[in-house]
């Protein structure tokens, strides 16, 4: 017998697999339906504009990995969502957790995994600099778009690498940041 929560997650999975929104995928771990892996492609494409030689969709083509953890209170309470890939974004903390209203006070039990992932995808393109989780990213986003884009592109390129290579890069970059 499975609980309401598990049955709901199975349905979320069926819907996400049958009708996946563009650039989004996710699936539960085979041995634990309460733990989901997901991948989001950074938004880009159609409404892309180029200003001063910089595309305004810096996250484009990034393959960002996420982890969603649920408990029995789902869908009355939101899951915990965390980026596994290193991010440079005004609303993503250094540990990968994110500051997104629908995962906190604006949660509704009618949301499902597809809705969560879609919201996160659009958050990448439309940060909310008023509730910064990464002060540096928020400041650059407001004041120095060129540098912001450069830093974001670095994480995009990093997102294509194997986890081992990423770990190595992370050490490097934290080293350089410290030196600056």
């Amino acid at each position, binding site marked *: 017998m499975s609980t309401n929560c598990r049955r709901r997650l199975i349905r979320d999975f069926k819907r996400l697999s049958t009708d*996946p929104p563009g650039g989004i995928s996710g699936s539960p771990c085979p041995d*634990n339906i*309460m733990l989901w892996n997901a991948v989001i492609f950074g938004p880009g494409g159609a409404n892309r504009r180029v200003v001063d030689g910089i595309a305004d969709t810096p996250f484009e083509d990034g393959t960002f990995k996420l982890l969603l953890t649920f*408990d029995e209170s789902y869908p009355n309470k939101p899951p915990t969502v965390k980026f596994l890939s290193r991010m440079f974004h005004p609303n993503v903390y250094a540990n*990968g957790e994110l500051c997104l209203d629908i995962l906190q006070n604006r949660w509704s039990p009618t949301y499902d995994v597809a809705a969560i992932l879609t919201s996160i995808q659009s958050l990448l393109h439309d940060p909310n600099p008023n509730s910064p989780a990464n002060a540096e990213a928020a400041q650059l986003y407001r004041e120095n778009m060129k540098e912001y884009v450069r830093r974001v592109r670095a994480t995009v390129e990093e997102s294509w690498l194997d986890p081992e290579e990423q770990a190595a890069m992370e050490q490097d970059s934290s080293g350089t940041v410290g030196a600056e």
Partner: protein
Amino acid sequence: MASMLDDLLAQGITDSTDFPDDATTPGLRSFDDALRCGICRDFYDAPVSLACGHCFCSACIRSALPEKAQCPTCRKEASESQLRRVVAVESAVHAWKAARDLILRFALEEERRKSRPVLPSLSQTRKSSNGNHSERLGQKRRRRDSPLPPSSDDEIVAIPSSPAPSGSSTPDISSLPDLVECPVCQKDVLSSKINMHLDSSCKKYLFEGSTPTGSNTGAESSKSKQKQQWSHLFPGSKGKNVPAKAKDRDQSKTKTKGKGKGKSRATPDVDVTDESLEHLPKVAYDIHPRQRISEMLAESGLPTHGDKNALARRHARWLVLYNANIDRDPKQRHTLDHLRQELKAEEAEGRTKKETVDDVVAYQKANKGTFAKLTEAARPKKPIKVKKAKEGTPVLDGDEVRDPGLAEGRNSPAGHEVIDVDDSES
């Protein structure tokens, strides 16, 4: 060994995506969806509406409102006092549940019919679906192992993995009503799962029809219904084929369903079919001592173990189940004993803690294969290293380069599933 996810998928949990998309069978998927609660995504059970007009299962909205006093769909202010039964929806659900199995068969038949002309030849299709490397969820093994019945090739092909028209999707294989009778237990099993069923000593992978397993006894009741049907056919041999254990279970079930057990409890059971039954009022647990909550539980015939929080939680959940039961058609209501069992089962599932992943790098390393597959599945339409479908059929936006294994049963035309993904999961 089937994974936990396979087990869950094999439970026959229905969803509107079981139906083909609207291009193939207009309106059917949306219709099925329209009869489902936005919170649990199951068919409305005791549907009630809020002042804004949005409809939910009584138990779902009664659990959601204490979290936030607003409509989950439109966020308008809401409270339990607004709840009104929606009798028409309840009858519609009832009728649809009865019709769904048949309609689903028709819909899938229609999908197969529409997809046929696209294919070069049927035997080729079978090869491609058998050799589909990206198939997942253990279905691959299951399907390969399944014995091919000694019928003509054409028949085998069409059913288990029907090729869909480009870009469209087929529902999960577990909902395809391609049934065979198990030679051992004589119950219906999906032909694709008959071997798994036999391996499990006839315990798992039984086909439960489209009856959603909404209540604890969903699976049980469909089994006993089956038995009843058999006993109609063979009035003389009533129950002879039924294993002794199953018979015992059935008897004990009818006992609990009657009111025999209720009498031994502190309060005699009320007649749940009484139309004038009223909802129980909410309780402010904070102002009551543990002893008082314990008494309240005892009055309702519920266990009284645990600390104050556990008692309050149990009683609050009881109120939800009880009040939602009142919102059912009096003839469809569950007995109080049934509700007590439900509460007990829920508690037995326990309150799992959220897992935490601390070492992000190690986790990604361990799940490298999974993430590689997910990345390919999510990759937006692009001229990446994918051998395109040879048919030259136009592919729907964003729909082309998906791992067909991810969308179980979503079958791209032959040659479409050639995605170079590391299949080995480390």
